[in-house]
Structure formats: structure tokens, C-alpha cells
């Protein structure tokens, strides 16, 4: 067997080998990283130094537990094994957030409609100032416009608000268009802001809905 600088890897290799050949030899009360040493025939010559290594590792582990830089296999950290020496993984605990006892936004933290509207108007004017409508280019333009407006709105909107940003972009022609929306929400905390822009070849209507999230 080649020299293995990391003692844990040596232990791991031993355990895996032991698990496949001598299942009953392992006792569940002990840690799985310690298979019964005397039963291993071919490695007798290596057993004494490994034994001593194992003991020293045990004492090391008991003294400082899990350091931040330690790279042990995850099952070794949990230290629970079944009869066969295979690890039992602990169930992953779902993080539960503490109750904040808040049911409404704070005093000064409402969705400011005028501010968001000004932001929308400014951004639309900047982004679409002199743009021409084109069938191929306008689809990605609409998408990038929503992303841009959303990021702008996020900066102005208070926390705990979910945002929905909706943009309608169309070619300026002789047609008529109507955009309507309705929301089922809490009128005291939730609202929307909208702005429109038009030039010679295109028009755009942007709406940002802010919904308070409890």
C-alpha cells in the first residue's frame, strides 16, 4: 500500500474495505472510522503504525472537533453508522425563520407611487429616446427594458415588496390600443405606478406593481 499522507483517507479506505468483507465485525456503538484491527490479516505489518495513528487521530478529533479548515467526508462528521459500517446520513434540517410579528409595512416604508413613476418616465425617455421600431429588434428591446425598469424600481421601492414589471411596446400606426389591469390585493399596502412614452415610430407603456409581502 502506498504511503498515504492524510490519515483520514487511510481510515476511510480501511473502513470501506472492512465494510465489504467483515460486516459483523464492526460494532455500531463505536465510530465507524475504527474497524477491528486484529482481524485484518494482510495488513498486519502495517497495523501497529496505523493503530497508533488511529489513536492519535481519535484524541485529536476529540480535542478540537471540527475545525473550519478540516476536509473530512461528510459522513465522518456525523459519526453515525449502521451495522454494515455504511454511514447513516442525518436528515437535512430545513431552516426555519423566526417570526417577525410584522403584518404591515413600517411607517415610512410605503410604495411611493410618484417617485416610481418619475423613475419610470426618466428611464423610458432615456432608453427609447430616438429608437426606431423594428420587428426583430423590438422583442429583445422589450425584454431588456423590463429588466432595466425592474432594477431601477428595486432601488426606489422599500424592502418587503414584491415587484411585477410589465411593458407593452408597439409600433406607432393608425391603430388604437387599450391597456387595463386590475388587482386583488390589500389596497392600503399594495399599489402600482405606470408611465408611457411615445415617439414617431413606437410607443411604450410601462407598469410596475408593488405588492407587500408579509
Amino acid at each position, binding site marked *: 500500500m502506498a504511503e498515504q499522507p492524510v490519515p483520514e483517507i487511510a481510515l476511510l479506505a480501511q473502513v470501506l474495505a472492512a465494510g465489504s468483507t467483515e460486516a459483523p465485525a464492526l460494532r455500531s456503538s463505536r465510530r465507524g472510522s475504527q474497524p477491528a484491527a486484529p482481524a485484518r490479516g494482510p495488513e498486519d505489518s502495517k497495523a501497529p503504525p496505523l493503530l497508533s495513528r488511529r489513536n492519535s487521530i481519535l484524541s485529536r478529533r476529540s480535542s478540537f472537533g471540527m475545525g473550519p479548515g478540516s476536509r473530512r467526508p461528510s459522513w465522518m462528521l456525523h459519526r453515525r453508522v449502521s451495522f454494515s459500517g455504511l454511514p447513516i446520513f442525518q436528515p437535512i434540517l430545513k431552516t426555519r425563520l423566526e417570526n417577525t410579528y410584522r403584518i404591515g409595512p413600517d411607517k415610512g416604508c410605503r410604495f411611493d407611487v410618484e417617485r416610481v413613476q418619475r423613475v419610470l418616465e426618466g428611464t423610458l425617455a432615456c432608453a427609447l429616446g430616438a429608437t426606431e421600431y423594428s420587428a426583430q429588434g*423590438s422583442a429583445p428591446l422589450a425584454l431588456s427594458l423590463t429588466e432595466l425598469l*425592474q432594477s431601477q424600481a428595486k432601488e426606489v421601492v422599500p424592502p418587503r415588496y*414584491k415587484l411585477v414589471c410589465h411593458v407593452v411596446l408597439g409600433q406607432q400606426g*393608425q391603430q388604437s*390600443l387599450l*391597456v387595463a389591469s386590475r388587482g*386583488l390585493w*390589500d389596497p392600503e399596502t399594495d399599489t402600482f405606478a405606470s408611465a408611457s412614452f411615445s415617439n414617431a415610430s413606437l410607443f411604450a407603456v410601462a407598469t410596475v406593481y408593488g405588492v407587500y409581502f*408579509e
Partner: protein
Amino acid sequence: MDEFQAAEEAAFLVDEVSSIIKEAIEGAIGGNAYQHSKVNQWTTSVVEQTLSQLTKLGKPFKYIVTCVIMQKNGAGLHTASSCFWDNSSDGTCTVRWENKTMYCIVSAFGLAL
């Protein structure tokens, strides 16, 4: 078992919402031609109908329904939306409908409570 059922009931089911929207559109503007004077009324009824049906589902969601009706005149139209929310619990559904004289695009957004 209870938790699983609660999660099922409180999810935004796109197919269900999509069929609700289609019914609302058909009911409001099903066989009509574009008339400027009636568009206001049509959009209101589409949105109201959709919203009332969504409410009847009884799920713990806040809803936003948007409707765009445009006359067919050869001009192009694009709609886009981006949302800042919780991807696992919130959802959206958009339905495009047209007849000979107009396009109708309805988007429904559901935000979990």
C-alpha cells in the same frame, strides 16, 4: 400528508389559470369585431371575470390581471414582464387571443401570501 396537500392547494397552477382566462375572453369579446367605443367595457369585463374566477379558487394568493386589446392594423406589438418575487411560490400565466379585427393579450400574476 397534510402538509403535502396544503402545498398542492397553495401552488399557482398555470393550466387552471390559463383556462380561466380563456373562458373570460371568450365570454366577453368572443365573436365581436373591434369597436373603439366598446373596448373600455370589454377590457373591464375580461379583467373582472378573470379576477372573480381566480378568487373562487380560494387559494392564498394576491392576483394582478392585465389585459391589452389592440386593433389589427398591421402594426407590431411586444409585451414583456419581469418579476421580483419568490420563484417557488409565485407564478404567472399569459394568454394570447385574436380574431379577425383585434388582438387580446391577458397576463395573470399570482403572488403567494
